[in-house]
């Protein structure tokens, strides 16, 4: 009786999952594996091998990889500083990090447009100080920058969570037994924080790989990422079959990263959000 009641409570979630996860997935696979006449085909998936598609996939993988690595390098020291802060000030800093996420993703990216433009805020300051101006907007660097800015909190939070949970006694024991701070970090802190790192990587890498807004707004549409190709197929080219076929390819990468997370993060320790 009791278990039935609990199951009923899950009803809305089930309805939600069916309507907004299962049905769309089925539709993606249906469109991806059929042609315009509704005949079964692998052509849409294999179309990834076409030069313009494979190139956009490579660029997307490369940019996502770079921004993920930079995010780790930025977020790890920050998370360690936060954990070691006295009192409640770490909670305040974490709040500051989450705060921008309450604002719309698009608006935040558009704000960077005004900052990075040739006649934008940064270059105006440089001009005022009689320094040479920089070409920032509409370059691959601007895209990477936009990715890092938008997805950094997703790296900081899991790292912070996992580091916070490390028992200080373990670290103290290592120091007592003669390990210096570098050794303690390499042999104790780092291995214990792997679940957080992996979870952070997934949460930064996957959205970076699939984004099309960042490259449109900060890259001036000059660099075509795989996300842009798929978006174009659905919107302007109205070829849903090809768009879905390429989405299936992209899904493979997402599934791989989910499996990796599942292996390293068995207890869901790194799940911050």
């Amino acid at each position, binding site marked *: 009786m009791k278990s*039935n*009641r609990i199951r*009923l*409570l899950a*009803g*809305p979630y089930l*309805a939600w999952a069916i*309507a907004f996860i299962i049905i769309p997935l089925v539709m993606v696979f249906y469109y991806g594996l059929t042609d315009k006449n509704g005949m079964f085909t692998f052509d849409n998936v294999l179309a990834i091998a076409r*030069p*313009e*598609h494979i*190139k*956009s996939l490579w660029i997307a993988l490369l940019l996502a990889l770079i921004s993920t690595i930079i995010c780790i390098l930025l977020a790890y020291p920050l998370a360690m500083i936060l954990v070691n802060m006295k009192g409640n000030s770490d909670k305040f800093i974490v709040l500051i990090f989450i705060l921008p996420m309450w604002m719309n993703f698009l608006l935040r990216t558009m704000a960077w447009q005004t900052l990075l*433009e*040739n*006649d934008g805020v940064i270059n105006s300051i440089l001009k005022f100080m009689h320094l040479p101006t920089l*070409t920032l*907007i*509409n370059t691959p660097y601007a895209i990477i920058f936009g990715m890092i800015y938008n997805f950094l909190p997703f790296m900081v939070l899991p790292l912070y969570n996992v580091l916070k949970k490390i028992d200080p006694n373990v670290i103290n024991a290592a120091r007592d037994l003669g390990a210096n701070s570098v050794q303690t970090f390499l042999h104790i802190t780092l291995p214990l924080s792997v679940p957080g790192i992996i979870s952070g990587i997934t949460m930064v890498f996957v959205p970076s790989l699939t984004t099309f807004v960042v490259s449109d707004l900060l890259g*001036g*549409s*000059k660099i*075509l990422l795989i996300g*842009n*190709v798929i978006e*174009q197929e*659905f*919107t*302007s*080219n*109205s*070829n*849903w079959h090809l768009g879905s076929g390429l989405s299936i390819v992209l899904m493979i990468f997402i599934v791989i990263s989910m499996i990796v997370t599942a292996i390293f993060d068995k207890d869901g320790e790194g799940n911050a959000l």
Partner: protein
Amino acid sequence: MKKAVSVILCAVLLGSMLAGCTGSKGGENGVVYVYNWGEYIDHETIKMFEEETGIQVAYEEFETNEIMFPKVSAGAVSYDVICPSDYMIQKMIDNDLLMELDFSKLPNTVNIGTQYFEQSEQFDPGNKYSVPYCWGTVGILYNKTMVDEPITKWADLWDPKYENNILMQNSVRDALMVALKLKGYSMNTINQAELDEAGAALIEQKPLVQAYVVDQVRDKMIGNEAAIGVIYSGEAIYTQRENPDLIYVVPEEGTNVWIDSWVITKNAQNADNAHKFIDFMCRPDIALMNFDFITYSTPNDAARELIEDEDIRNSEIAFPDLSKYNNLETYSYLGEEGDEMYNEVWKQVKSE
């Protein structure tokens, strides 16, 4: 009891989810769903329409014809009134998406100049489906303080001097039109060799291009972000008002003359209200308000008469004498295969 409560909760939750889909029933005289280009109307006119008729307007915007089409053809949202361009209207007629208009319900269409209906015959034979709303050309907007000599032709967009100072249109037909005209071909060609040549020209030009954008050309040019931009003539007056250094030219090699027209979808739920909306938009005072606001050339002759500023009423930019220019063309629908050829070439350019 508790079970009943949770069942009711579920029902309420599901019900509210579904209720979101049906939407509100609108004003006292119903509702009309309008799908128009971005920043393409004075919103005050919509309010006036709502007040005068008691019909609520659900207003949505699109950025390119190509984005609009799949949303309408998929039927996911049932729009009543749409404002596509010439070739897209032809495509929608071909796909049986449009309703024949009842001109007895559109008395104000007499205000539209006959030459615009004649021009519309190219994509809407017999003028059965569309009422012209705006028209113009595609041309070059340049900043006179940022160039050495006046820009006069498309070929100037391939001048290495202007590296990183050129804004191109990020839509397949407009971008390829520039390259096809540069090479002296028709903008409606479906000759693969000609298209490949145009694609190669765009790839050659790519290192010089600062960005491929649509509506943002306007703001970037006003903000001195680039020296040269490809833009619709309707933006010229507005941009000059904001930044007097900007000059609009119709390129020597010829360009596109376009008409954006109101149409009603085949399965419009509110066809009567849709006719009322279109008719309202053709009223001279309303057309004038829209012209003042969006500054796109109006085909509404009665509205043009009402323009107080003589300079604008006789402005060569707002109301050009098309007979003076060579090689003007209107886009025509290329068929599904033609569309695919263009999309493929454009994708190769973008991925380069």
